[in-house]
């Protein structure tokens, strides 16, 4: 892409990109730390996630302000316009990921007292790694301007949904086996649900990033079947 005639315009766009990348990295590390804190009952780590969320919010505020100033000052067009509006939206999804991680971290104290079944912690760990890979990949691919890679990323989210369904079933089984597991399992259930929602935000980011890079919407996905809802009703 050629440079702008006004060099400071390029710098302003780069700065917004950099904030987005920072937020992406932070979202990834918060998600990872929160899950680990929950599974290892690490209160200090949980505390760090909570304070990281303040940084995340501050970055989003800065990005919004810079984007709004840029629109007022430069009146961006075409790919620049898409990049600025898209950055605002992506930042809002990243900020939501931060909130979800914080929410997981806040449960650490509550789960701490009761022992987490080993096997269960393993499948949540797997789910967390899947989600983490997605969070890290989405911003990377956007920054590397790889639109086609974003399509596969969105498809990956379906695997997370499927995994979530199986974690959900597993947790139900543990709760039915031994009512003393209920407290811990309920927190873990929220944790898994939050991870699944992080995945959904990644999908939103991928869709936005695709639009920014190509000017076209990703073809609509088939509506997903939420099996957990059916399980609950029956």
């Amino acid at each position, binding site marked *: 892409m050629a*440079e702008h005639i006004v060099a400071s315009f390029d710098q302003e766009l780069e700065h917004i990109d950099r904030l987005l990348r920072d937020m992406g990295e932070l979202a990834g590390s918060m998600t990872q730390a929160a899950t680990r804190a929950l599974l290892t009952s690490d209160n200090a780590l949980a505390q760090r996630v909570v304070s990281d969320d303040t940084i995340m919010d501050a970055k989003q505020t800065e990005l919004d302000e810079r984007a709004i100033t840029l629109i007022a000052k430069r*009146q961006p067009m075409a790919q620049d316009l898409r990049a600025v509006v898209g950055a605002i939206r992506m930042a809002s999804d990243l900020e939501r990921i931060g909130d979800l991680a914080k929410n997981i971290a806040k449960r650490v104290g509550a789960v701490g007292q009761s022992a987490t079944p080993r096997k269960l912690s393993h499948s949540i760990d797997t789910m967390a790694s899947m989600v983490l890979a997605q969070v890290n990949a989405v911003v990377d691919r956007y920054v590397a301007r790889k639109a086609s890679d974003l399509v596969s990323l969105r498809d990956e989210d379906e695997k997370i949904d499927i995994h979530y369904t199986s974690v959900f079933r597993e947790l139900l089984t543990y709760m039915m086996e031994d009512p003393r597991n209920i407290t811990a399992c309920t927190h873990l259930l929220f944790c898994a649900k939050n991870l699944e929602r992080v995945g959904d935000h990644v999908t939103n980011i991928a869709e936005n990033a695709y639009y920014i890079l190509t*000017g076209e919407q990703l073809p609509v996905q088939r509506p997903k079947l939420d099996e957990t809802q059916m399980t609950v009703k029956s």
Partner: protein
Amino acid sequence: MNMLTDAAVETALEGAPESKAAKMRGEKVNVFYGGKQALFDVSLDVGENQVTALIGPSGCGKSTFLRCLNRMNDTIDIARVTGKITLDDEDIYNPRIDVVELRARVGMVFQKPNPFPKSIYENVAYGPRIHGLASAKGDLDGIVETSLQKAGLFNEVKDRLHEPGTGLSGGQQQRLCIARAIAVSPEVILMDEPCSALDPIATARVEELIDELRENYTIVIVTHSMQQAARVSQRTAMFHLGNLVEEGPTDKMFTNPEDKRTQDYITGRFG
């Protein structure tokens, strides 16, 4: 499920802006100034009751193309035009065409407001009078009033119709020139950077006027402001070094243009 309003359904049935019938049509238009070629095989349709914006870097041929549409290039000795330009499917370069009548049907508003050094009234009345559009004095008064009204100027000048047009503010002068163009009941109005000498408020008024005029007239506007093209037009044509490089719905041109040269130009990048 979205609830479609009647208007939305109607628009959907009418189709997107591109399906508007062509009021004017340029086919393989070439223009030479002496030995220098300024336009190369430009083919462009101008949709009826639409605003078509012509954009592109200085010297790319926007004004040249605009001037072809009412044969203003005839007034430049060294200019030579080839190709075909039609108005309602009739070739306007056909020798049988009366150029004076053509310019009444295809009016023009220039960059710098250029009222005649006469009264506001005379500025508007001049055209209808020479074209014999008003038989009685009363008719002429009516034409002057409606034209000023359509140009959104009447209320501001109704008490001083016989004062000189040159005494108005820049924005008012430009609207006076638009009233003058409207007075001869044109079908097409060509505007060459009509707001470049105006302040933002006067510009906003002219833009609003352009949007209202679209209902009754077909408009082609040359503009240097991308935002203006985005605001007032339904279709945008991008010129570069005498070529038409891209033409399409304005929304798309400013969010997702196809051509690299359009992208570079509208985003302010080095081409």
